[in-house]
C-alpha cells in the first residue's frame, strides 16, 4: 500500500567526526545543522571527538558480538540510530575511508540488536535499521576525484553498500563530497559551503514529501 505520510517531522541524526574545532569539515558540520533545522526536522547530534568516543572495539565486545546490545556507554548512540530516518555522516576522508574514530563508531554501535540480528538457525544477518531511509555523507578529500577513483573510493562503498544493507531496502544515498581540498583555493570551498545548507534542507524536506511504500 502506498500512502502519503503525515506531516511528522523528519528525524535526523548527524554524526560529526573531526579532531579540530575549526576548519573546513567543522564549517560543513555547521552548515548541515543549519540545513536540517531549516527543513523543520528534529535533530540529534554526536560530536565524536568532543564526546571522547572510544573507537577501539574491546575483547569483551568481540566475544559477545553476536548477542544483542551495546556497551552501556553506547546506549544513547544505539537509541539514536534506531530513532532516526536520515543519517548524515560528516567527516574528512583519510586513507580513502572514514577516520578511525568514525570507523570505531560503526564497529561498536552498529552491533547485534541495533543494526542487525542473527535469528536462531539462520546463516545470514537480518537487517534491523529499517527506520533509516536516507544516508548522506558530507566529506572532504585531500586528493582529486581521479586519484580517489583509482584508490577505489572505499569510504563511499562502506557507507553505500555495507551500512546501507542494514537500512530500509529503499533507502536513498547522497554523496556530497568535496575533492582536492589540498589544492583548491578558498573560494571553491566557500562555494561548496554556501550551497551545502540549502542542499541538506532540500534532501531532508523532500524525503518527507515522498510517498512511501508501507510494508
Amino acid at each position: 500500500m502506498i500512502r502519503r505520510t503525515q506531516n511528522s517531522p523528519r528525524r535526523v541524526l548527524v554524526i560529526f567526526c573531526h579532531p579540530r574545532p575549526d576548519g573546513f569539515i567543522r564549517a560543513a558540520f555547521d552548515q548541515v545543522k543549519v540545513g536540517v533545522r531549516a527543513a523543520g526536522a528534529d535533530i540529534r547530534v554526536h560530536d565524536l571527538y568532543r564526546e571522547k568516543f572510544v573507537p577501539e572495539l574491546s575483547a569483551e565486545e568481540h566475544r559477545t558480538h553476536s548477542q544483542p546490545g551495546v556497551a552501556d556507554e553506547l546506549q544513547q548512540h544505539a537509541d539514536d540510530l534506531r530513532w532516526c530516518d536520515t543519517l548524515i555522516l560528516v567527516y574528512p576522508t583519510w586513507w580513502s575511508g572514514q577516520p578511525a574514530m568514525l570507523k570505531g563508531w560503526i564497529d561498536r554501535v552498529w552491533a547485534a540488536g541495533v543494526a542487525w540480528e542473527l535469528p536462531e538457525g539462520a546463516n545470514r544477518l537480518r537487517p534491523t535499521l529499517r527506520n533509516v531511509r536516507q544516508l548522506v555523507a558530507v566529506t572532504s578529500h585531500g586528493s582529486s576525484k581521479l586519484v580517489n577513483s583509482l584508490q577505489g573510493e572505499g569510504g563511499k562503498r562502506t557507507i553505500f553498500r555495507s551500512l546501507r544493507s542494514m537500512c530500509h531496502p529503499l533507502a536513498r544515498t547522497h554523496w556530497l563530497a568535496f575533492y582536492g581540498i589540498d589544492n583548491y583555493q578558498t573560494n571553491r570551498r566557500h562555494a561548496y559551503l554556501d550551497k551545502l545548507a540549502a542542499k541538506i534542507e532540500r534532501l531532508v524536506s523532500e524525503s518527507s514529501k515522498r510517498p512511501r511504500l508501507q510494508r
Partner: protein
Amino acid sequence: MRVAVILAHPNRDSFAHEIARRATGGLIAGGHDVELIDLHAIDFRAAMSTAERAAYHGQSPILDPLVQHHADLVRAIDTLVFVYPTWWSGLPAILKGWLERVLVPGVGFHFDERSGKVRPGLTNIRHLIGISTYGSPRWYVRAVNDNGRRTLMRALRVSCGLRTSRRWHGMYAIDTTTEAERAEFAAHVERAMSELR
C-alpha cells in the same frame, strides 16, 4: 629481509592471532627478521588526537614516541604484513588509526609544495601482504568491494610504488568453516610466508 607484521584483533585466542603466529613462524623459518606488532596488546590509540591533527602538515607531525618507533620501523623494513578481521567491509578502527597516525607526511608520503602532488614515501617496501578473515562468503565480500583490501592494496600501494608486489590471503565465511579448513588456511599462510623472497 626485514618484515613487520601488524596485527589488529582484540582477542588473544582469535584465529587472527593464530594466523599472525603462523605467519611470523613462516617468516622466521624463511630466514627473515620479523617484528610482530599486536596493536591491542600495546594499547595503540586509534584516534588521531587534536594536537596530532594540528601538527599533521607541519615539520614534525609525530608527537607520540610509540608512533615514532613504528614510523622508524616502517622506513627500515622491506615487507609489511597486515593481519586483521574485516569488519563492515573495512579495517578495524585500530588498524585504520595506525595508518593515519604512523604514515603521516614525511613517512607514508611527501607533499610536493610546488606541484601540489603527493609522492610515495615507502619506496623501501617490496612486498605488501594482507591476511584477513571475513564473516561473509567470498561472493558477498566481492559485491560490497572489500574496502579494507582496497585501502591496503591500492591507497597504501600508491605510497609504496608500482614495483611493490601485492599479495592477499583471505579466509572467507569464517563462522561456517571447519577446523580442518582453518588449519589448512593457517598452513597455507605459513608456507607462503616461508617462501617469500
